[in-house]
């Protein structure tokens, strides 16, 4: 970590605290400053901060670390007297929210080596309000020791994680808590379709040991061996491995490479330094810093891959297979509904879901062992599965702007109709989900008793 600029009064100690209170006016060595609000860990930010300040000694960089969600909250709460210059985070959705609140300024420069899109997904915001600086793909990482101890096979595809063998061994975060998880969920939903996607998600979550509170909770859990397999963004896997943990990362075939982003905050007090920082970040030199073993992210600048470390795939030469073309408009439209739906159906009712899943898995196994003779049992199991997978909302409804408006306070248009309140809707969903899970468990148990 670089030396932190200290105000001279700090050296005076506690004794003259009262005087210190008055002497808060800072004395910087640098002429300019730059305030960056970011969700990235200091492992990443420090590297860039140091390198940037080396090139621009006159600019003092201040990094304010917040989780993506509280970062967004922070910018919204402080907009009336904004002191932040740059917002720097993974999830494009967070930038979409800020864009919606009109809290982003613009940056429009062409940088050599950065294509306009990757497999059809635009790397930068078409309106130029935020830009991709690194690419992230989604997949799973697992702890090799854990897998050995529990004799689990390494998963290859999303479907693998639905298997009974992984029951209680999977970790995943919630889309409402983690922007990256939101992207993962959205990727699966777009790749497999609304109904099928949720089916996969519920089947995987039914095997979950826990739904972690932060996106980092997943790699952390895998690293420490709390659970075996986690659904994570690629760099968590790469950097954990680089730090020496006995983990592996794998991209399944349904995945999307989505840029991690940076944007200038509207009314930034230090607009100039902010632009300079982004210039630096996107330059070949800046992009190469992403290969730092603690960072391990994929640059958006093609030219940077010349110096890529071994084992890091190059998305521009097809090393990563991506079947999904991520549609960010769809994602943005149903953003809040997905968050809420996931929490109501999965996060808050994980125990119920897990029990139902376990019961169905047990019945399935019993059915397989008994041969295919018992039609009644098979029918009951199908009913149980249908109950688990039932959705309170259709894809069309989820994309309906009127319906989405229930979940936001600031209405985009004055004439948006709002019927019902979030808590009201969620209670209806919750009642349905809990009842379905209960019934499914009952049916599966009944089926098993028949075998």
């Amino acid at each position, binding site marked *: 970590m670089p030396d932190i600029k200290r105000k001279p009064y700090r050296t005076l100690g506690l004794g003259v605290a009262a005087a210190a209170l008055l002497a808060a006016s800072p004395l910087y060595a640098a002429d300019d400053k730059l*305030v960056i609000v970011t969700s990235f860990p200091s492992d990443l930010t420090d590297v860039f901060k140091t390198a940037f300040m080396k090139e621009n000694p006159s600019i003092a960089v201040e990094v304010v670390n917040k989780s993506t969600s509280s970062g967004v909250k922070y910018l919204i709460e402080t907009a*009336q007297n904004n002191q932040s210059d740059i917002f720097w985070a993974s999830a494009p959705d967070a930038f979409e929210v800020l864009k*919606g609140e009109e809290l982003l300024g613009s940056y429009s420069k062409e940088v050599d080596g950065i294509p306009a899109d990757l497999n059809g997904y635009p790397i930068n915001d078409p309106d130029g309000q935020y830009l991709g600086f690194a690419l992230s793909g989604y997949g799973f990482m697992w702890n090799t020791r854990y897998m050995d101890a529990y004799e689990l096979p390494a998963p290859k595809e999303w479907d693998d994680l639905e298997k009974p063998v992984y029951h209680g061994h999977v970790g995943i975060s919630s889309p409402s808590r983690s922007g990256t998880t939101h992207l993962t969920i959205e990727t699966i939903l777009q790749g497999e379709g609304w109904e099928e996607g949720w089916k996969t998600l519920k089947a995987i979550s039914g095997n979950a040991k826990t739904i972690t509170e932060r996106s*980092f909770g997943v790699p952390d859990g895998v690293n420490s061996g709390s659970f075996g397999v986690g659904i994570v963004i690629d760099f968590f896997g790469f950097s954990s491995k680089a730090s020496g943990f006995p983990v592996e990362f794998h991209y399944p075939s349904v995945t999307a490479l989505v840029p991690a982003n940076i944007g200038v905050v509207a009314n930034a007090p230090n607009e100039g330094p902010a632009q300079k920082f982004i210039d630096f970040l996107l330059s070949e030199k800046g992009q190469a810093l992403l290969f730092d073993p*603690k960072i391990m992210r994929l640059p958006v600048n093609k030219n940077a891959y010349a110096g890529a470390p071994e084992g890091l795939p190059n998305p521009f030469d097809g090393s990563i297979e991506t079947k999904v073309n991520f549609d960010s408009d769809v994602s943005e439209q149903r953003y809040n509904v997905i*968050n809420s739906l996931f929490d109501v159906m999965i996060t808050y009712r994980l125990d119920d879901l897990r029990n139902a899943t376990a019961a169905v898995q047990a019945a399935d196994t019993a059915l397989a062992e008994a041969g295919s003779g018992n039609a009644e049992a098979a029918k009951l199991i199908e009913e149980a599965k249908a109950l688990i997978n039932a959705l309170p909302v259709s894809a069309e409804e989820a994309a309906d702007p009127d319906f989405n408006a229930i979940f936001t306070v600031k209405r985009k248009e004055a004439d948006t109709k709002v019927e019902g*309140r*979030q808590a009201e809707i969620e209670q209806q969903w919750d009642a349905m989900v809990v009842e379905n899970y209960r019934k499914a468990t009952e049916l599966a148990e009944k089926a098993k008793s028949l075998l």
Partner: protein
Amino acid sequence: MPTAALRRPALNVSVGPYLAAGIVVLFLGAFLVVPVLKVIQVAFQDPSSGAFTLVNFQDFFASTLFRQSFYNSVYVAGMSVVIASAIALPLAYFTTRFNFSGSVIIQTLAFVPLIMPPFIGAVAMQLLFGANGSVNLLLREYFGITIPFMKGLNGVIFVQSLHYFPFILINLSASLRNIDRSMEEAAQMLGSSGVRMFRRIVFPLAMPGYIAGASLVFVKVFDDLGTPLLLNVNTMLAPQAYLRISSVGISDPMGYVISCILIVFSIFAMWVSFLGMRGKDYSTTQKGGGGLSRRDLTRREAVLCYIVVLLILALVLAPHLGLLLLSFGTVWSFGVLPDGFTLAHYETALTSAWGFIQNTLLYAGLAGLIDIIIGTAIAYLVLRTNIIGRKWLDYMAVSALAVPGVVLGIGYLRVYYGVEMPLTGQPLATWWGIIVIALAVRRLPYALRSCTAALQQISPALEEAAENLGASKLRTVRRVVVPLMVSGLVAGFVTSFATAAVELSATIMLVSSEKDAPLAYGLYLFMQSAAGRGPGAALGIMAVVIVGLATYLSHRLVENARRNQAAASAPGGGH
């Protein structure tokens, strides 16, 4: 001399207390009441029109999820009190009732859990007691079983009781020390002994202290956010509030409704405990006895006591042990112990930690100072003056206990972001002083308790003597009251300081640049990346050591002061 000296008190009696009360009210109003009201007003607004409504509360009670969260929170808080009591009772009893070597060390060590910084305590506990933690790995290898210590609500109860039991220990020990030995001797004389005597005589007499501690534990656990979040338990009220307030893009009033309910229920719980304690402060009614009875232990009893105490301490210090291992370990993954040991994490931590440590000492020190000044002022106003509404000052300060840190943090941003600092034009909410104030407000109830207790022990006659000799009220307070309160003030300062040093929930909302960040925030940063776990743990250990050392030193200071006072006030006893 007499005319000049005697004229002054009259003026001070009438204006002084009101002036002091005014300042206190201003401070609490500006930094507690207004920000909190600003936040919870959302709970009373229609989400679409912004008009006043109670429909949000209706939604809260209509929701099965929220009702269940509420029951879970009450259950976890209640069970935590039970487990914490089971830990605190033997420690308090052994150290106050027997001649037990190392009582001071036990009392100090038992304080250490309070200074366990958030985020990492639960991490360490997962590594030790989690489903694939050291203990369960060993159990699985040798006995083929695992014990779900950390599963769901169990984990929260487990971690919370280990974290908060010192509140019961401290208060209960104080109560036990105040029980005159004749109370127990009378019972023994009448044929009572052992557990029966403890149940019928000792415990009921220590009840006020126990209730004070237990209600604190209940409220803290009820409001606590960090532990359930880290253990990924979200069907409890505080996490529900946090999740809803801080979700991206979702602006659901339910988060604020829950905050409101948290505050109201916490205040209700404290009020109930207050009712329960009323008229039961026995310490002042026991006088003229033989002081504290400490019994010598037989060899067998001593061995038994040591086993119990060591077991408890081992459990209580487990998070610290886990943290220590983590800080020295290279990679610790799915193993009983880390793969190897290294000092590298301390090196990493030290290069970045100095700024954090300086900030922490400054912030927590200032917060502690503010707390004992305001605490003394409130205690004095409540106990020694009869100004109108003085009790409310007390209630107002104590109600800070019931305000979740996040709510306070958001409240400060809402109220003070628009206010500019003089000279710099920087928003007040981003000035580091606001972090100090937040810490001070959050920890004020602890300091206030110590200040009140200290003042209660000073006979008003001592002040009257000073006034009789011509000292004004203000001078009396300065020259007589404060010096006599010193040990209580130090205790209050230490509690404020130590717990403020590791506070995160309000801080995280308020830190606006890394150079202003305190240690807990630094820990949070480290704990966000795979490579940061070791250095984070090292930083955590440093925090615990620094704060622990400060605590131990002031304990010694207080003990010495107490001994000197005791020696001075007892020139030759009758027994």
